[in-house]
C-alpha cells in the first residue's frame, strides 16, 4: 500500500466524521428553529402532575450537595408529586449528615445510605440501589453538583407525557463555572456544541439522542423492564440509551429543560473524567459491536457506528495522517495524488469554527467575540488533546484487560463555589 492510498484512507476517515458533524450542525440549527417557532408551546399548564422520584447519587459531595438539594427543593413541581432521593454512597465526608439534615426538615427529601456490602461500586450501582426506594411513576436523575432551573422538571415531564413512544427525556446542561478559567471556557463551548450538534442534530434527523447522565427523566416501568443501570459500564448513560431504544422507545432531547453543573477546573481532573468517559464509550462499542446486525432498532446501528467511527475510525484517520506527515519529512511514503488539499485543510478548520459558532449563536448569550477567539484557539489546543485522551483510554482499557483488573469508577473531583 503506497502513500497515496493511505492518504486517501486517512482523508476519507477524517472527512466522514467532519461531514457527518456538518449535517448534524444543520440538524441542530433546524431543531432550534423548530423550537423557536413552537415557542413555549410545551404544555406546562396541567391540573395534575405525575409522581416523579429524583435520584441524586452522592459520594463525598459535601462541597456541592447543599446547593444541589436546595435547587431541587426550589423546583416548580407539586411537592406531593415529588420525592428527592439522595443516595449517600459510602461518603467519608459530611455528605451523609448533610443529607440527613435535609431529610429531617423536608419530607420530600429521602436520605438513602448504601452499606459497605452494596455501596462504593460506582454511579450505576448507587442509582440501582436508590431506585429501590423510589415510588414515582417517573425517575429523574441529577448529578450531585447540578442546579436545575425551576421549570426543568416540568419540561421533562411534559416532554414524556406528550408522546407514548418516548421512553426518556433529556434536558440540556450548562456549565456553571464557565468563566472560571480557560479550561472551563473550553468545556462550556464544548458542551454547548456537543448538545446542539450531537444531541439536537441526531434528534432532528434520526430521532436519536443519548442520556447525558444527568437532567433526564425516564419511565420507571421501562427502567425496571430493561434491568436498571449496567454496573460494569463507566459510561452508564450511553449504555442505558441503547437499551432504551432496543426496548422500542425513543429518547427525546428537550433543551428547554436546563440544569447547571460544575465542570473540572484543573487539567488533571479533566483528564481523569474524560478518560473515564472515553473508556466507558469504548466499553459500549465493544459490547454492542458484536450484536450490531442483531439490533432491533436499525437507528442504533447508525449510532453505534457513529461511536465506532469517533473512537476508532476517526482516530485511526488522524493517526495515519500524522504518520504520513512525519514520513513525508523523511521522504518516505510520498503522496503524489492531486487535489486541493491545502484548501481542504483550511476548510476543515473554518468548518470547525463555524459549526461551533452556529451552536453558540443558538444560545442567546454565547455569540461573543471572546468565545470566537477561544474557538479559534480550541482547534489547535483543546481539541488536539482528544487524540491523546482516546489513545490513553485505549491503553488503560487494554492494560486492564490483560491484568484482568476490575473496572473502577473514578469520581470527578468537585470544586468549592
Amino acid at each position, binding site marked *: 500500500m503506497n502513500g497515496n492510498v493511505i492518504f486517501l484512507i486517512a482523508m476519507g476517515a477524517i472527512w466522514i466524521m467532519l461531514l457527518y458533524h456538518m449535517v448534524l450542525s444543520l440538524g441542530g440549527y433546524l431543531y432550534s428553529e423548530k423550537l423557536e417557532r413552537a415557542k*413555549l408551546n410545551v404544555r406546562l399548564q396541567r391540573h395534575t402532575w405525575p409522581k416523579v422520584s429524583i435520584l441524586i447519587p452522592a459520594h463525598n459531595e459535601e462541597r456541592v450537595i447543599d446547593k444541589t438539594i436546595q435547587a431541587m427543593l426550589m423546583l416548580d413541581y407539586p411537592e406531593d408529586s415529588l420525592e428527592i432521593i439522595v443516595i449517600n454512597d459510602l461518603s467519608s465526608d459530611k455528605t451523609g449528615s448533610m443529607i440527613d439534615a435535609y431529610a429531617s426538615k423536608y419530607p420530600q427529601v429521602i436520605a438513602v445510605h448504601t452499606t459497605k456490602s452494596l455501596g462504593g461500586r460506582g454511579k450505576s450501582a448507587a442509582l440501582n440501589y436508590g431506585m429501590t426506594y423510589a415510588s414515582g411513576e417517573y425517575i429523574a436523575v441529577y448529578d450531585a453538583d447540578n442546579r436545575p432551573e425551576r421549570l426543568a422538571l416540568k419540561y421533562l415531564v411534559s416532554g414524556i407525557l406528550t408522546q407514548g413512544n418516548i421512553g426518556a427525556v433529556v434536558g440540556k446542561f450548562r456549565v456553571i463555572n464557565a468563566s472560571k478559567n480557560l479550561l472551563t471556557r473550553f468545556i462550556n463551548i464544548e458542551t454547548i456544541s456537543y448538545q446542539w450538534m450531537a444531541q439536537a442534530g441526531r434528534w432532528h434527523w434520526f430521532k436519536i439522542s443519548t442520556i447525558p447522565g444527568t437532567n433526564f427523566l425516564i419511565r420507571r416501568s421501562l427502567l425496571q423492564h430493561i434491568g436498571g443501570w449496567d454496573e460494569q459500564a463507566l459510561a452508564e448513560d450511553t449504555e442505558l440509551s441503547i437499551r432504551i431504544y432496543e426496548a422500542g422507545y425513543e429518547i427525546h432531547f428537550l433543551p428547554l429543560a436546563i440544569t447547571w453543573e460544575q465542570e473540572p477546573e484543573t487539567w488533571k481532573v479533566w483528564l481523569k473524567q474524560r478518560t473515564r468517559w472515553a473508556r466507558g464509550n469504548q466499553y459500549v462499542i465493544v459490547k454492542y459491536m458484536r450484536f450490531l446486525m442483531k439490533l432491533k432498532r436499525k437507528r442504533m446501528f447508525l449510532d453505534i457506528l457513529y461511536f465506532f467511527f469517533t473512537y476508532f475510525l476517526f482516530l485511526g484517520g488522524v493517526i495515519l495522517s500524522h504518520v504520513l506527515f512525519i514520513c513525508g519529512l523523511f521522504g518516505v511514503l510520498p503522496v503524489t495524488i492531486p487535489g486541493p*488539499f491545502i484548501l481542504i485543510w483550511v476548510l476543515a478548520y473554518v468548518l470547525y469554527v463555524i459549526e461551533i459558532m*452556529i451552536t453558540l*449563536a443558538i444560545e442567546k448569550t454565547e455569540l461573543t467575540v471572546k468565545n470566537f477567539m477561544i474557538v479559534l484557539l480550541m482547534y489547535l489546543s483543546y481539541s488536539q488533546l482528544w487524540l491523546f485522551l482516546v489513545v490513553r483510554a485505549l491503553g488503560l482499557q487494554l492494560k486492564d484487560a490483560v491484568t484482568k483488573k476490575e473496572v473502577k469508577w473514578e469520581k470527578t473531583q468537585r470544586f468549592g463555589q
Partner: protein
Amino acid sequence: MSINRYTLLFLAIFCLVAYCSPIMGSVKAETGDGDTILLLYQQEVSSSEVSRWSVRLKHYAAKVVEREITNLSRYKAPDSYVAVVMLMDTYDPSLISEVRERDAKASASPMIVIGQVGPSKPLPVTDLEYEDQVSYTDTRISPIVLDDSMTALAWASNKDVDYVFASRSSHGRSLWMIGMTEHNRQVEVITMSILSEALSSIGYKEALLLVDGIHARTSVEQLASLVDRLEAHNVNYGIVVAPLTDFEGESEWLTHNEDLIKALSRYTSDTSLGRIVVKGTPGANLDQELAVLSSAGLYPTAYMMPSHGLSAKEHAAVEASFSTLIGDISIQAETGAEQLRLFYRLGVGMGAYSRLPAALMFDDTNPQHELNLREAFTSVRPFTEAFHTIAVKVEVSSKAFERLLVLLGKQGLDYHDLAQSAYHVRTPFMSIMNGHVEVTDAALQSALAEEAREARGLDRFSLLLSWGIAGIVILFLLMFVLFIFYMRRQRKVRLFEEEDVDER
C-alpha cells in the same frame, strides 16, 4: 598455487569476462571505424588526466588511441590516425622530434602538445588573453619560448610580465603547443577552442534532432506531419516523450492514448529512424514510467533532463538507469540549485556513458528560438559546433519545420542516431543494451505498470473526492454563516435564555 598465480588467474578470468561482457561490447561499438586521434602521454601523466583528454578528444574523432611514450623503444604506432595529441608532464622537445621521426604518419599529421611545454617551471598568472578577449583568473601556466617559426595564440600575465602559453608553428607540418598545467575553466575554454581550430580539418559536425513535447494528448497527425518528413529525408531523430503529464492538476499517462502509442511504436521500430527519449518529470517514479512505456512496447534510448532540474536523489536514479543523458545537469540541492552547463558532447567509453549538450529549442511561436539556433551555428565558439542537440516542438507549423530543415541542411550536419552509439538503460525489471531488450522481471514490470493504471484511477478519485468535499463544505459554510447572522439579528427574541448564572 601461489598468491601471484591466483592473482594472474583472477586477472585472466576478469579480462575474459570483461571482453565478452556487454560493456566491452559497447566500447567496441563506440570505437568503430572513423577518424582516429592518437593520444600520447608521458608516464608521469596521471591516468585520470589521460582519461579526461581522451573524453575531450572524442568530441572530434570517433576513436582515440592512447599510447604511453616514455620508453619509445616499446612504442608502436597504430595503423591509422589523423592527428596527434601529446600530453607532457616534463618539458622534452627531443621527444616530440623523435616521435615524428619514428612515425611517418605523425610527421605528416597535425600535432598538439599540451602540458609542460617550456623549459621554465609553471608560473602563477592572473590574466589570460585569447582572440582579443581578456579573462581574469588565478592559475598556473607553462610559458612557451617562441622561436621564429612560431606564432603566439594566447598570452598570460601576472600583471608585470606577459607570457605566451599557446602557440602555433608551421614548418611543413602544423604544431600547436599549449602550456596548460592546471585545470581551470578559462584555460580549458581557450584550449578547446585551439583544439577545435587545430582539428577542424578532421572534425565533423553532428546533430541530434529531437521532436519534443509528446504527451498523452498529442495528436497522431501532429506527430506524423513532422516525423514522416524526417523519415522521407532519411534523417535520424529522437522522439521526446513525457510518460506522465500533469494537465491542470490531473495526471495522465501517455499510454492512455492508444493511437499515439501505435504511431510511436511504428516510428521507433527497427525499420524506422526514430528513437524514444524519455523526458524527465521531477518527483515522478522513473521505474514506473519506464515500466509503463516498455509494457506498451516503447523502449527508450536516452533521458532528457527536465528544464527545472532534479533533486539529488532523482538525479542519482536517472544516472543509474540511463547511460545517455541529454541536457544540462541541474540538481536541486538543499543549499540551492547546482548547475553544470555542457558545451560539448561528453562520453566515457568504459561505462558507455554519454552526456549530450542541452537542446537548442525550435518553436515557431517563439521567434527567439530560431534566432538562437542561427546564432549557435554562426557564433565563434568552434568547439560547440561539433555537436548540437536541436529540439523541435511537435506543435510547430509545417512551414516553420521546413525552414528549420533548410537551416540545418546548410550546416552540413550528420544526424546522430541514438541507437547507433553504445548505450544502455537499466531498470530493476529490464535492461536495454544497444537495442537489445531483456526483461529480467516481467512480474515487477507488469506490477509497476498496473500500479500506474491504478494510480490514474486514484488520481481521478482523489480529485473527485477532494473537490467534492470542498464544494459541499463551501456551500454549507456559506449557509451556516447566513444562519449565524440571522440568529444574531433575532437574538432579542430567541428562546434559549437561561437564568442568570450569577444569581444561582
